[in-house]
């Protein structure tokens, strides 16, 4: 696959490969399945090595069951379960083999004849959603959702608790599963961009950017410089409105009403600038495979508008920093240790708040990031406060990046034509406001999309989140959830 160093291996070799990767400080990112031809299922494992800028990809076609890597890389557990649900493939010795994405009564929509064992017995599949057994009469069970208070995305959360204390917490996040990856099949690259923008609305730019970069890698397309700079501009505007919303929402959970209003007002201002710049409050309809659909003219007016906004955002962040009632609720809340963050696959601001210094914009630069000054904020504490501080620092960093983009923006074309390559494959990535986002695309023989896999940051971070909830208390839950800043659309797809 373009964008990666690849190797074909036997499925039985994967545990050894995974252990070696762990020993050298690399990181397993995901596994997904696809059908290169009718009736054949192939697994693709993606990893980022410790030192190289190239991603690694292993492919294998297991006969029957593949060995589960969840014992070596716990974060792989959900990806394997997704493959089981959607493709009917089995993973041997999976620690939690019950359904994740689809209900128990739904057959795998992509069951392939060869490589997919018919009637693979899924041990534990009869345990509803993998909930622990409850045999203590004083432990109470609270199912909350999927329709929750306020305007929120649908998800169901199950709490086992005694008084204020949460003993165990389990989120069920796939009520909203729309089968988006499958919706790409058969589309042209241009139509696929419209689809990618609608996977996670508040991550429209990151999704379409990662998608387009995957297409461009597959088809060996060089995007013009001006388009690369404007793509970085759009990505940072997206980060701005997301992070401002995040701080406003976090303030609402600590009942800081004026701060909530101010954060959401600043978010609205950025969305209005987005619309002025692109015609869309979510910056949709601009990025397309090969560059941009049309040129943008941001130079003077946007820079002027952002000067005022930057000062207001800085003042807002400073006031939050000096609000003791707010900080008291965040400090030590929802602590995520570095080892758990690493094992369970935390990404984005969440991992950076737990001391893991990774950012795709710096480590695997795309768009114009290699030529832009980027400061990556990292904190060690791993609590809700650290997560808020990392995002607050990223707001200022985004303003600085945008300022530089607008200074360096050169005249030029913004689109390069693409020519179809039947059977091409490519990997694209972006550091979304929520973290690492990958798109893997496979073209069919007809030059249309055959398989698109999306590794979304919310899928990763929702996997991590429960580890910060077990053994905490109810009063902190809403604050902790807000401090992760996740979407469910991105997770469920």
């Amino acid at each position: 696959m373009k964008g990666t160093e690849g190797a074909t291996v036997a499925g039985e070799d994967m545990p050894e490969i995974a252990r070696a990767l762990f020993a050298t400080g690399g990181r397993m990112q995901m596994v997904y399945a696809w059908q290169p031809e009718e009736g054949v299922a192939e697994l693709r494992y993606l990893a980022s090595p410790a030192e190289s800028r190239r991603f690694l990809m292993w492919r294998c076609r297991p006969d029957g069951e593949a060995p589960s890597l969840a014992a070596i890389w716990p974060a792989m557990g959900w990806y394997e379960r997704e493959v089981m649900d959607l493709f009917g493939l089995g993973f041997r010795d999976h620690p939690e083999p019950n359904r994740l994405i689809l209900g128990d009564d739904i057959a795998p929509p992509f069951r392939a004849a060869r490589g997919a064992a018919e009637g693979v017995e899924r041990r534990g599949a009869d345990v509803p959603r993998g909930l622990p057994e409850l045999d203590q009469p004083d432990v109470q069970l609270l199912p909350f959702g999927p329709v929750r208070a306020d305007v929120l995305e649908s998800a169901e959360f199950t709490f086992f608790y005694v008084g204020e204390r949460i003993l165990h917490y389990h989120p069920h996040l796939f009520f909203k599963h729309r089968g988006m990856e499958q919706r790409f099949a058969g589309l042209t690259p241009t139509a696929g961009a419209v689809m990618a923008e609608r996977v996670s609305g508040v991550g429209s730019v990151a999704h379409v950017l990662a998608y387009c970069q995957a297409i461009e890698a597959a088809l060996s397309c060089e995007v013009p410089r001006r388009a690369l700079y404007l793509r970085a501009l759009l990505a940072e505007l997206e980060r701005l409105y997301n992070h401002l919303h995040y701080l406003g929402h976090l303030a609402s959970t600590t009942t800081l009403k004026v701060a909530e209003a101010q954060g959401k007002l600043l978010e609205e201002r950025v969305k209005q600038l987005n619309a002025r710049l692109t015609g869309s409050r979510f910056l949709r309809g601009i990025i397309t495979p090969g560059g941009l659909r049309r040129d943008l003219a941001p130079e003077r007016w946007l820079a002027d508008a952002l000067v005022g906004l930057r000062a207001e955002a800085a003042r807002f962040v400073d006031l939050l920093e000096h609000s003791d009632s707010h900080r008291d609720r965040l400090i030590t809340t929802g602590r995520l240790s570095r080892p758990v963050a690493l094992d369970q696959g935390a990404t984005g601001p969440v991992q950076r708040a737990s001391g893991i210094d990774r950012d795709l914009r710096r480590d695997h630069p795309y768009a114009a990031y290699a030529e832009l000054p980027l400061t990556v904020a990292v904190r060690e504490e791993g609590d809700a406060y650290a997560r808020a501080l990392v995002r607050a620092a990223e707001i200022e960093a985004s303003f600085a990046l945008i300022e530089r983009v607008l200074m360096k923006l050169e005249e030029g074309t913004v689109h390069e034509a693409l020519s179809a390559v039947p059977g091409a494959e490519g990997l694209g990535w972006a550091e979304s406001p929520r973290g690492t986002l990958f798109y893997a695309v496979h073209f069919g023989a007809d030059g249309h999309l055959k398989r698109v896999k999306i590794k979304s940051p919310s899928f990763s971070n929702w996997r991590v989140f429960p580890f910060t909830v077990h053994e905490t208390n109810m009063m902190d839950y809403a604050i902790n959830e807000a401090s992760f800043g996740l979407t469910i659309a991105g997770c469920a797809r």
Partner: protein
Amino acid sequence: MAFWTWFGLSEGKATTAWPGRGSEDGQQGVLGMPRYAPELCEAGCSECAAVCPSGAIAVAPGAPGGITLDYGSCVVCQLCTEACPSGALSPSQDWAFGVRRREDLLWSPTAQPARKDGAVPRAFRRSLHIRHVDAGSCNGCESELQALNNPFYNLHRLGIFFTASPRFADLLLVTGTVTHAMLAPLRATWEAMPEPRFVMAAGTCAVSGGIARGGYACGSGLEGVLPIDLYLPGCPPNPSAIIMALLALQGRMPERMARDRHGE
């Protein structure tokens, strides 16, 4: 120590006077549905239908210009306006499309008279409580619904409130394509509402299934699932479009006044 009260007071009022007074709806530059001029259509051309990713445009010999256009399926991607060689489809700022009848979202050569009677009894004009259910959205609609309570739009000033319990709700506002898994919780929410109860399909996904229509995990929106009193396509509908649709539902504003931004 931060003095938030002082800060809030010193910042002054951020709320727009629209729609009561003025035109500051906050949507400068927002692109809406394509505007269609069939007399400009070239015979035998079907470029728009070929690029439309959500099936909103279909080739129909005999129809004006040879195509039919369903705004209820439009995801506002603008691909048709770029593909159209003759300018028959052009970008516009027509984003206010809240209507009571599904067929009013189909383009037709004659403009429908703007209805002003509203879909709810007069008693709800001064106070409307909404229960929102996300039935499988991309979170874009939720982002815009949440924006309604930011200081710029400040929905409360219009006597419209979101409520946590369906027992207190007059209107069920549904977003998303209605996934198989959300069908039962959605119906249960509706069942729990006291009568009279009303339903609004907000966003193209809820109106017609949108971009996800036809997959293994979802249906085609709210049609046939619940009785719908107001349709508001858009991807997503912006906060001002939502406000206009809610006011149209209450009979405080005519529904989709014309194929234009504010009916100018």
